[in-house]
């Protein structure tokens, strides 16, 4: 029976090519606009590490007290602790080591001097982290591995580099044990990362805003970087100016510049850690009531507004466009279906049950949806390719066409058409079995 409906649908669509084209274009454009903005939204609002994001937590501690309270009292998060840690707290948390895995980290931007003569030094982006960082974020290694807690303790001059930097400096291959000149010191390569670009960049949101175009070129042991006086890149936020100058002065100040992440495997561990944080704050800042937060990763990304509001507005407006396209298609389908009320009446008289009329017209709408979806796919392809022209590069580079987007586009197109066809089909099915083909 379905083949009969298909045949009827094709026949009907062919009969009014203008109207059919109009509906297909409408669906196509509507779906493409929303899918293009969706591709961007999906990229920036996605879970960067879905298999363990619920186990990763970001602690916040109020090290400034009431004097450091800023912002608007109407803000729901007014009075929250700052979004990063100062050096003393970060190091103390590391020393207590209460989570399964944890790492303090800060952004660095050292220069790397290639071995070959005549090549200018290059600027490398990266982070200073603790050994547990690698297993905690499941960083993939192409060669070698991270380092040990012992390396952390003895401030080993070792480095994990990206595949990109490996190609640039060493020409690729297994470079473990090779030596890399960073800021004039020699570091031994212990690992080369595989292809790793978590999006959004989740472990240092306060410095990257969630988007880190350059990616990690070098990852150094935290203590080693501090000992080498490798200053922090990115933001430094001070409630009071440091009393001493220089990077050492920064370490002795209450300025915040360090991110922190901890892995807690179950609810009990989370509860224990919360209690621990409160105790920690009470002990370190007895002048005011402990003010701490422990947000899981997705809440943290949301709290830090990783999804730019422009992206949300675009998605909202594009969805509005899709709705208009739906209403438009519904109007056209209504006209098209009711124009055939004579035919419907005859079919009903000849014994077509209501379900058959539903099937016939929904099949027709589904075909429009499918055709609109295919057109939508092409337009989405064009759209995704051109987001780079209209959106900030760091965000646009995340939007891409993949199988799931393809399937979503087709599904959305078909479902949208079926939705649009629902009322017109209902009206068509209500046409009474006819005694006369109306001739108006």
């Amino acid at each position, binding site marked *: 029976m379905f083949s009969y409906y298909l045949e009827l649908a094709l026949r009907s669509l062919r009969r009014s090519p203008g109207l059919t084209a109009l509906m297909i274009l409408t669906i196509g454009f509507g779906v493409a606009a929303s899918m293009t903005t969706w591709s961007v939204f999906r990229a920036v609002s996605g879970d960067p590490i879905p298999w363990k994001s619920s186990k990763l937590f970001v602690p916040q501690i109020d090290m400034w007290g009431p004097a450091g309270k800023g912002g608007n009292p109407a803000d729901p998060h007014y009075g929250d602790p700052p979004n990063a840690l100062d050096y003393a707290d970060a190091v103390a948390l590391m020393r207590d080591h209460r989570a399964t895995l944890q790492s303090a980290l800060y952004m660095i931007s050292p220069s790397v001097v290639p071995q070959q003569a005549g090549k200018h030094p290059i600027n490398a982006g990266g982070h200073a982290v603790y050994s547990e960082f690698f297993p905690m974020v499941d960083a993939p290694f192409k060669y070698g591995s991270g380092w040990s807690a012992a390396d952390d303790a003895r401030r080993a001059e070792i480095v994990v580099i990206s595949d990109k930097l490996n190609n640039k400096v060493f020409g690729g291959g297994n470079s473990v044990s090779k030596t890399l000149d960073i800021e*004039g010191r020699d570091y031994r390569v212990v690992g080369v990362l595989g292809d790793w670009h978590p999006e959004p960049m989740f472990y240092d949101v306060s410095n990257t805003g969630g988007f880190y175009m350059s990616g990690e070129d070098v990852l150094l042991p935290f203590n080693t970087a501090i000992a080498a006086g490798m200053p922090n890149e990115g933001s430094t936020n001070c409630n009071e100016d440091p009393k001493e100058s220089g990077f050492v002065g920064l370490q002795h100040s209450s300025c915040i510049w360090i991110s922190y992440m901890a892995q807690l495997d179950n609810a009990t561990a989370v509860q224990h850690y919360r209690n621990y944080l409160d105790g920690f704050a009470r002990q370190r800042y007895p002048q005011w009531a402990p003010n701490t937060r422990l947000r899981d990763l997705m809440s943290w990304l949301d709290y830090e507004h990783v999804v730019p509001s422009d992206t949300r507005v675009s998605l909202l*407006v594009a969805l509005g466009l899709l709705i*208009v396209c739906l*209403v438009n298609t519904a*109007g056209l389908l209504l006209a098209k279906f009711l124009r055939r009320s004579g035919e419907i009446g005859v079919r009903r008289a000849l014994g077509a049950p209501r379900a058959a009329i539903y099937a016939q017209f929904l099949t027709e709408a589904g075909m429009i949806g499918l055709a609109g979806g295919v057109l939508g796919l092409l337009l989405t392809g064009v759209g995704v390719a051109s987001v780079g022209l*209209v959106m*900030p590069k760091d965000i646009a580079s995340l939007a891409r066409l993949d199988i799931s987007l393809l399937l979503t586009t087709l599904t959305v197109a078909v479902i949208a058409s079926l939705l649009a066809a629902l009322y017109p089909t209902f009206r068509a099915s209500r046409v009474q079995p006819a005694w006369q083909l109306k001739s108006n």
Partner: protein
Amino acid sequence: MTLHPILAALRRHKAGVVLIALQIALTLAIVCNAIFIIGSRVQRIQRPTGMDEKNLFMVTQLWVGAPTGDDKASIDKLDAMLRTDVQTLRSLPDVESAIAINSLPLTNSTWSGGIGLKPAQEHATAHAAHYFADEQTIHTLGLRLIAGRDFNAGDVHHMGVRGQNVPPIVIVTKALADKLFPGGNAVGKTIYIDRNTPSTIVGVVARMQVPSVDSWANDFTWNSVLIPTRLDGNFSRYAVRARPGRMDAAMKEARAALFAANPMRVIGDDADSSGVKSFADIRARAYRADLGMAILMGVICLILLAVTGAGIVGLTSFWVGQRHKQIGVRRALGARKIDILRYFQTENLLIAGGGAMLGVVLALGLNLLLMRHFAMARLPIGYVLAGVAAVLALGQGAVFLPARRASNVPPVVATRSV
């Protein structure tokens, strides 16, 4: 012509009428807000920084193995390196002038802090961006000094990046001066930049934007203070004014000359993070998201209007086809072509008018939603009225073709049976 027959006909096509009116309403709501977004973004993009942006470029560089800057000796060493670089740039044939500066408008690298009128003031009177300047900054950037005096060479000190050496004099922007001293005449007044040390305002510049264009800086976009200090760190920025028409040459010379003076440095050379950037490039990058948003909204508006226009054409064509016979009868009974044309135009005006009324409500509702969740400004009523005019015009434009086809139905159709 009376409205009665039109209303009667519309009642017979209730669902179709409702759908097209709803579509017009939604279109109006979205287009109004989208155009408003475009308008405000374009306004943002076009605002001047206060500098003479032509022939201006910026160099960002990082020294390799530079002194730490933690002690006086190493700070002095860094300062010497900085001055050498500035001299190198100033001596280039295609360079008119050059300065070292911590940041420039639109570069997003913001140094900012509160400014008070009394020592140890609890809450700052104003928030402002800090530019570390020298006696040639106003000239090189093309700022306009409107009161007081410029710095002279003797005013300029130097300190490490994380130092706390607040100089006794500063220059502020007019916006900041007005905010701090609403009574006017800020020159000669004392302000506190670090809560403890007094600084005297010696000059006022007309306008200088802060580095950040992000929303967090919206409250103090024009509040800048020029501090006569060279900042010595492991990286530095230079603002360079090329001789007219010699921009490209100057940019090439600058890179080569700096490397020649000291090869142990990084000056980025990939397209995205180039260490030598024209200010036009900086401006384009800073407002890229705004431009993108404006373009995206524009594209969506175009699609919307096209879809709605096409929908009106489609539905009206259908109605014309359906009423073919009826139109013939009217013609036979003496209606002129223009009467038929008017009939469909009036019909569309009624539908679009109804849709527009609902659309105004939806537009304001959508604006409220955007205001609440996305920090959007209130939609000026002018945009709504323009939107109403636009959808009414769109309706009339779209209905014209099918209506004209209707008016061409010959009266003889009335006599045909089927």
